[in-house]
């Protein structure tokens, strides 16, 4: 016990709180895959707009569905969708950023212009386009937001690669005849991870906010799949009568985003203090 307490004391509080908050959310989301207190879609006309109670922790909505179960499922959707978005956009970011940053030249210039254009393009219109080509649903939200977020990773990775491509150890590797691709992915890539991780946690937050924003505007995940953003927009009409209906998904989004923010703050501080120790 004492040991644990001592260990806890040593740990970075931001990291800890962040881990607990995100951990709880992710656990609830995962749990929803196998179990929820009630069926998230089961309707009951007798139980419409019940205020939060022990029976229904977060109350019930206009169809008498259990909001807690729906929030659980919504977290599951949000977390999986955001993870996929981050993987796609960060993956694309690494690939494109590494190549353009390292090689530079006309290709770099062209790709930077395209990322600029995508960056300044209203994401809703982009989402509409992707969704109308592919049909709506989870996969397409992931794809369209993956595209929207890729440029920000490209920028970060690119600038890191530009910084490192002229570093001494890379020069040496080049002189020794190491192949370009090996330099790119074996020599440089591992060295940018500290910067990269921070942008991934921030990217996670952006993905969560964007996914719920899109669902809020009605172009995101489709019912009966529960989505926190969609729930919030459905609930807005009942704000006076059933404020819990809007507060539950809204506060859940805040909870998850805050958790990830604290986590990234923790990682950042940890990285700094870690460096100091080495120094």
């Amino acid at each position: 016990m004492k040991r644990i307490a001592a260990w806890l004391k040593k740990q970075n509080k931001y990291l800890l709180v962040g881990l607990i908050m995100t951990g709880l959310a992710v656990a609830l989301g995962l749990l929803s895959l196998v179990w929820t207190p009630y069926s998230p879609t089961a309707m009951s006309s007798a139980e419409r707009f019940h205020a939060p109670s022990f029976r229904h922790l977060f109350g019930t909505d206009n169809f008498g569905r259990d909001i807690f179960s729906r929030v659980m499922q919504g977290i599951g959707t949000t977390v999986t969708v955001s993870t996929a978005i981050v993987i796609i956009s960060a993956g694309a970011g690494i690939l494109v950023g590494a190549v353009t940053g390292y090689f530079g030249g006309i290709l770099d210039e062209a790709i930077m212009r395209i990322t600029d254009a995508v960056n300044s393009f209203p994401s809703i219109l982009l989402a509409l386009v992707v969704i109308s080509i592919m049909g709506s649903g989870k996969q397409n939200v992931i794809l369209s937001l993956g595209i929207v977020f890729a440029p920000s990773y490209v920028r970060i990775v690119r600038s890191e690669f530009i910084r490192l491509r002229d570093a001494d150890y890379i020069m040496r590797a080049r002189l020794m005849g190491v192949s370009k691709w090996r330099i790119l992915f074996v020599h440089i890539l591992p060295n940018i991870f500290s910067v990269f991780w921070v942008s991934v946690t921030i990217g996670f937050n952006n993905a969560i906010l964007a996914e719920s924003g899109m669902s809020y505007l009605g172009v995101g995940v489709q019912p009966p799949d529960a989505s926190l953003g969609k729930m919030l927009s459905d609930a807005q009409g009942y704000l006076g009568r059933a404020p819990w209906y809007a507060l539950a998904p809204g506060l859940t989004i805040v909870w998850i985003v805050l958790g990830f923010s604290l986590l990234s703050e923790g990682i950042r501080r940890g990285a700094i203090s870690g460096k100091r120790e080495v120094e």
Partner: protein
Amino acid sequence: MKKRNFVVSLMALLLIAALGACAGGKSSEDKSSAGDQPTYGGSVVVGVQQDIDSLDPHKAKAAGTKEILFNIFEGLLKTDVNGKLTCAVAKDYSVSEDGLTYTFTLRDGVKFHNGNLVTAEDVKYSLERASGLLDGTALVSSLATLESVTVIDEHTVQVKTGSANLELIYSFTTAIIPKGSGEAEGSDPIGTGPFSYVSYKPQEGLVLKKNADYWQEGLPYLDEVKFKIINSADTALMELKGHSIDLYSYLTDSQAEELKNDYQILAAPSDVVQALFFNNAAAPFDNILVRQAVCYALDKDRANDFVTGGNSRIISSAMLPTLKDYYVDLNDTYGTGANIEKAKELLTQAGYADGLEFTIDVPSNYEAHVQTAEVVAEQLKDAGINAKINLIEWNSWLSDVYADRKYQATVCGITSDMTPSYLLVRFQTDSSKNFINFASKEYDETYQKASASLKMDEKTELYKQAQKILVDDAASAFIQVPPITIAMNKDLGGYQFYPIYVQDMSTVYFKK
């Protein structure tokens, strides 16, 4: 007018307007509760859902625009609160025995908003413009059969049509505008209605002021009416709570519930037929057994209960119960609740013993349709039917579902007007509006016979048969006619519901 006697009987047959309705110029004001003494003056803000597509009454297409223009424009005839035709710019009319000649006598002293008296020339111009006699394009398609409009004398206009049709008379509600105004109507609309145009701002709204010279004595009460465009139902609710609008229609059941302490809540049947429409040409709904199975499995009572608080009229075919003469109750065919056993039996026969899967496309801006789809999808699970919902933007719906017919099923509503043919015409095999791809020779024949018939009882019977064919073939699963629910400022009175989509502000007043 020697044919007068026959005309009277023909009109009686039509069961629409006894000519007597034309005689009195005054509206039948009904003050529902005692002590609601009307006062004159005041300004009212009415929230509306859609922006205006045109201020030109002949060019306006959207129902949301016509609902507003009803206050600015009038035709020779006008629809009253019971859905019957009364006289407006005309004071009397007659139809020849063969149904090909219509003669209208104009009311004396009706003035346009610009102060000029309405003349027979104005009427001729308006009808020619709307029917396409002027430049070849019929702006009002139902008037396209007109062959000539003749001024007999300064109070009389005669209209000739190429083919007799009992329902043509409804088209004379087409707006009368000043001669030669044409395109100018779009920017400075001039009509004869109870209110005149003041200003319009895209996305914000329209301002109207009282027409002091209105021919109906004592109307309107209000000095000013502002129509404010509010795109989303949520924003509308916020505005109602903030008391920044006085009147708003098309509330959902829950919204009405939330507002009932602060507003008068009034309800009446709407003109919308809501249904789970099947694409009859695409799998799995190209199989009649599947269509019937879903009809049996559908729990209409449940949809009614959840979405409209039990205030809808359950229906089974494409006809409004408010069109009493033509409506036939066919709810017994599939029942109004869920008949799971029968549904499963039919699905097994159709080869879907392991369960049926399909996608319902729903226009995302129509909350009532979205909610209905959610209830239906959940409730169909009991019959082993897995319906996925796909929310799409209204414009994508219009293009993909309605125009291109690329869908399996959709929940939406089709609106009606006062003519029975309006809802039924679209289900003919070749109709451009037949977005469900319904194909039945029997139906086509029945419908065509009905619409050509000049005998009222025969016509009615045929229309009823047509409805029955739609149900027996399970063309689609018709669900309900939802109510129109409005919230109105507690200080206001005199609001009247129409069986069609209009907001008549002329009878609305502030209570003493």
